[in-house]
Each structure stands twice: as structure tokens, then as C-alpha cells.
């Protein structure tokens, strides 16, 4: 047998959100999701960024997109990963109305313990909308998750 030692890193960082991030996160407080438009390809990019990596030009206009959209993909974990939340929880990509790229997000509002139900509810193209936190603080977690839009 060899000895084992437990070690841990706890390192506090202070990250700048930059101009684009700041505008995006401030808007979340008002339940608004903001993207930027590339002047060349015309795509509305979420999350907003300073430049379009495809066209390699500065992005220009800000565009408010809907907090509703359609599911691109979904997954639910039923296994526990060290340091991550207890299962089950679902993440996915949602393409918001008015945006040209998908947004990574949590999905919920249904019983996630049954993967068949998850599959039926969050099929590609299924309509979903954001469920907002009551007390918003300008963070990505102001959107608690996306839930199915009935009917």
C-alpha cells in the first residue's frame, strides 16, 4: 500500500466582464437577453462578443432577443461527478428567437428522474422559455432554467 494525501486548490479570482459582458449581465436584471450583430455575416451572437470569429471584424449593433426559443439539444446526468451538483440535472442548448447561435443553459420545470419524459418534452425544436430568478443580480444564474412552453 502507498500513502495518499488529500490536497485542494481554493484560488479567488476577480474577472472583468468587459464592455460586452457588462451590458449583457446588466440587461439580465431587467429580464432582457442581449446579443450583438456581426456587420458582415449578419448573425446575432449569444453570448455577445467583441468580434465575430468567422468574419474577424468588430461586432456592431446590440439586439435584444426573446427569452423564448427552441431546444437544440439536451442531456440529463444520472451520475454524480465530484464537486458538481447531485443528479439529476439537465443542461442543453437553446436557440432564442432572434438569435443565430444557441445558448448553453439549464433545462427544467419537469420531473427529470425519467429520461423518457425528458426526451418527449425537450425534443429538438421543442419550445421553451426562461424562468427568471425573483431577485436578479446580473449573473447568468438570473435565468434559473428554461421550461417547456405549453401547447
Amino acid at each position: 500500500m502507498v500513502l495518499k494525501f488529500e490536497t485542494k486548490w481554493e484560488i479567488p479570482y476577480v474577472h472583468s466582464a468587459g464592455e460586452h459582458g457588462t451590458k449583457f449581465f446588466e440587461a439580465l436584471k431587467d429580464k432582457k437577453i442581449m446579443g450583438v450583430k456581426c456587420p458582415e455575416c449578419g448573425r446575432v451572437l449569444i453570448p455577445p462578443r467583441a468580434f465575430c470569429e468567422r468574419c474577424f471584424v468588430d461586432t456592431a449593433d446590440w439586439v435584444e432577443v426573446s427569452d423564448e426559443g427552441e431546444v437544440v439539444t439536451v442531456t440529463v446526468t444520472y451520475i454524480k461527478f465530484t464537486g458538481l451538483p447531485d443528479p439529476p440535472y439537465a443542461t442543453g442548448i437553446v436557440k432564442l428567437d432572434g438569435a443565430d447561435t444557441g445558448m448553453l443553459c439549464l433545462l427544467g420545470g419537469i420531473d427529470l428522474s425519467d429520461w423518457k419524459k425528458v426526451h418527449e418534452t425537450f425534443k429538438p425544436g421543442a419550445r421553451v422559455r426562461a424562468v427568471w430568478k425573483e431577485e436578479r443580480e446580473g449573473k447568468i444564474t438570473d435565468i434559473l432554467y428554461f421550461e417547456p412552453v405549453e401547447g
Partner: protein
Amino acid sequence: MKVGIVGIGITDFKIHDEPFYNVAYVAAKKAMEDAEIERREIDSFILGGYDNLGVGRTISNMYVAPAAGGYLRHEIRVSEDAAFALPLAYMRVKSGLSDVAIVLGFGHSSETPVELVELQSLDPLFHRDLKLSLQMGYAMQSYVYRNSFNVSEEDTAKVVVKDRKNALKNEYSFLKESISVEEVINSDMAVYPLRRPEIAQWCDGCVAFILAEETTAKRINPDPIWIKGLGWTYDNYFMGTRDLSKLFATAKAAEMAYGMANLKPSDIEAAEIMDLTSDYHFMILEALGFAEYGKGKELIDSDFPVNKSGGALCTNAYGSTGAFLLANLALQIREGEIEKGIAHAMTGIGQNAAIAILSS
């Protein structure tokens, strides 16, 4: 001037009791013994693997450079799967700056909460709070792939069965348990839509290669394995910006490697691919040009040898999986089973790829 592989060292792939640098030393030593050279004959030391958070120690080359035989010499480190370090070693030799180079890849998963480490690679403002594990990222691609191309559970289960069967015959592979299609389909749902056997498990293991320029290579080894083509690419880190049904980084890296080798997919006799999930197996074969998009499943019953090693599904050490596959391909060439083959490595959530085409 050609560049050849003249020495290969592979350690056991298992859960090691020794720290990663001691396992790495074994791989380097084996590669030098295989090439029948001493460490003083090596003039470039190229290290590959996930340093820092990946092994819980910053500046991992402080540990791995001596293990490679680089004491009081110079070293370069590629903080990626070690397959991404091969092009760097190749360039050192091809440029004439080096006659004999070593690539040492370390992979050590058993001490590290890999999912928590990989979470730190996500953007801290937009993505990290969403608690996406690496496997959840893979699964989101599987979901899109299965829905886009009508791929069934039976189709993906066959990949697991085939890889597992091959691994049983490979002395170096980690997971050696046969499984049936029914057992895969009836196993627990782990990360929807992936069942437990459809996701690669973590293990530890190291791989080393000795590279040499043509004249030296022939002096060291009468039958070097030549590096014919190399390619590598990075796709967008924002998953929502990518078409998740296809592996564009793999396709672009393959295009680069085929171009350099002046070969096409039909010239290739075997492939070793980093199928971290069952779906990726099909997606990679499609991106490498062996099947049309959505038709990778048709190759499962063909004679074209894929993952004779057992693939990443049976051997996956965080940082050396791609190097393991590359070594297995090289051994198939050395044994005379094939003349030309392709080895594929992929990291992140499928957005980074490195390809090597080898020949006798």
C-alpha cells in the same frame, strides 16, 4: 527528408499507485530500450498531457522533463493530449534543429476529479455556473447526432461490443470485459442519451515515442514507421455556435493530414480513433472521410479495421489517450499488419483534433 518513429514505449494502462512522473519515466525508458538508444542521444524533449489542474501540480514539466531524460537539457510542453505534441516533435526534427526527439505523454485520471477540472476550462462568466460535466457535453452531441441521422441504440451499442472485443486481445488496453448488445441497451442510463458502457472510463498510463530524421532513423531501426501526414485544428469553444451533428475540427485536421501525406481516405488500411462515446465512433469515421455524414454506422460490420486497440472506450487516460491510440497504430504497422494507417485524437467537447497518418 523523412521523419520516422524508431522507438515506442507503452506502460500498463490501469489505476497506478505510482505518481504520474514515475509512470512517465517507465514509458520513456521503454521507448529508449525499444530504440536501443541512450538518453544522451536525444536532443529534443517534447512533453504532452494535461498539466496544472490536470495533475494537481503547476509546472508539470518540472516532474516530467526528468522522466523523459531531459535533466539539464531543454524541453517543450504541450498542455493537451500528447497526440498534439507529435507535430511539435516532428517540426523540431524536420527543421533540422534536432536529430532525435522524444515525445512523452502522461495521462493520469485516478487522482483528479476530471469533471471538476474540466469545468474550470469553461468561461467563468457565461458557462461555468451551468455545471456542465465533460460527459454531459459529449451527450449533448450524441443527442443531436442520433436525432439528425436516425441512429438507434442498437447501432451505438454495437460500437461498445466491438471495441470491448478488440480490447480483450490487446495487452495494453485498460477495460477487458466483453459485453453484448443486449447488455449495453439494458444498462443504466448514465448521461442521457448515453448509457454507462457507452462512455469512456478514466484510467492512468503513459506513452513515449522516439522520432528521428531519415538517415539516423534507418541507423537506429531498419524499419522505422514514417510520419506521412499531420493535421490539427480548433473549432469554436461556444458549443451553441457549432453544428453539433458533425465534428468539423476532426474533418479539418484530417484534410490537413491527407494533404500533407498526399493520400486519400481510400488509401488508409486501418484507423485508431478517440471514441470517447459510442456516437463519437461514427462521427469521427464520417469526419475522417470513411463514410458519408450519418452513415458511419454502416462501417461497423465492414472489414475496415477500426480500433484494433479497443479504442478510447476501453482505454482513456486523461492526457495520453490519443498517444495510446497512435502507439497502437504504429505497432500494427511494425507488425506488418498494415502499411498505412490513421490515428485520431480529440479533446474538449469534440472541438479540438489532432491527426497523424503513419506508413511503413
